[in-house]
């Protein structure tokens, strides 16, 4: 039966039985899709399995890739506006060769109300890492600025479209050196606020959660002719 199980797992796209130490948090969108799919047969709805109406794109596999990067030691907050710096890294090797990327969305969750009471306005800067560095030996440097966004209050997970970047990484994996994330604090601050800021930045480091939602379409499983007519 183990042999049969192994064959079936390969059919599911797995090399061996997964044994995750703990489950990753599942975003609402994935839970909603699976709940809708479970309800569809009873509602008599025939679903097109190659179209994700919740995201409005063609695709038959959704993957939520965890961030495998690390925090970088930023300077003291009293000296600079930098609150935290982090290398974000996503391993795209799970995406198979024949798959076509239709969505690559970075999700950044800064945590629940960690800086709400304090009231500093944060600014978030995302850059592509300049070049692949040998981890642990050289510090990743920010390259081309990808996004700069003001975050005046906690507003849930922030989302960034990384489709073009991810396509590039997918075609040339050696180009995937990750993303450089920096969270900055805007405005002038007095000594007391600076003290609180240290605490806020430490909380942000603990609560920050990044993931990459990737949707792919397998042309062998999703023929153009199977698409529903509008």
């Amino acid at each position, binding site marked *: 039966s183990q042999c049969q199980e192994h064959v079936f797992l390969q059919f599911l796209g797995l090399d061996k039985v997964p044994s*995750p130490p703990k489950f990753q948090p599942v975003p609402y969108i994935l839970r909603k899709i699976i709940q809708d799919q479970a309800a569809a047969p009873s509602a008599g709805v025939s679903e097109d399995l190659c179209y994700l109406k919740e995201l409005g794109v063609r695709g038959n596999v959704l993957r939520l890739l965890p961030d495998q990067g690390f925090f970088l030691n930023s300077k003291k907050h009293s000296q600079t506006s930098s609150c935290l710096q982090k290398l974000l890294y996503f391993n795209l090797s799970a995406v198979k060769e024949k798959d076509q990327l239709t969505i690559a969305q970075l999700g950044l969750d800064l945590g629940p109300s960690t800086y709400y009471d304090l009231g500093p306005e944060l600014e978030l800067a995302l850059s592509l890492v300049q070049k692949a560095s040998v981890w642990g030996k050289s510090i990743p440097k920010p390259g081309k600025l990808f996004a700069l966004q003001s975050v005046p209050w906690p507003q849930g997970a922030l989302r960034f479209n990384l489709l073009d970047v991810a396509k590039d990484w997918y075609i040339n994996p050696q180009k995937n050196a990750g993303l450089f994330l920096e969270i900055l604090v805007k405005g002038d601050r007095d000594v007391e606020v600076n003290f609180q800021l240290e605490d806020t930045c430490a909380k942000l480091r603990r609560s920050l959660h990044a993931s990459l939602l990737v949707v792919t379409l397998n042309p062998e499983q999703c023929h153009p002719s199977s698409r529903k007519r509008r």
Partner: protein
Amino acid sequence: AAIPVPKASCKNLCHRHQLFINFRDLGWHKWIIAPKGFMANYCHGECPFSLTTSLNSSNYAFMQALMNAVDPEIPQAVCVPTKLSPISMLYQDNDDNVILRHYEDMVVDECGCG
């Protein structure tokens, strides 16, 4: 004309039976996040020649049943799924990726002789 179905053998005729797959029974609950299980069903029952035409049979099953009547060495048609539907599964792989994928032909909706 409709073929009369013998009442006594009805329960033995090819039809769909309920089968709930509980992932915990397979140890798959350790990596499948949702669903916890699903009603997969299965097909079981006899496909006698006299009822082949009334049991959602394929033309091939009919021919096989006909041949079985001529030569008993040839097995009877068998009870198989004739309509299947997909399910979606949310699971976590060894790289901690959370994956949502649709799998076709996971649930037996209808059975017939084939």
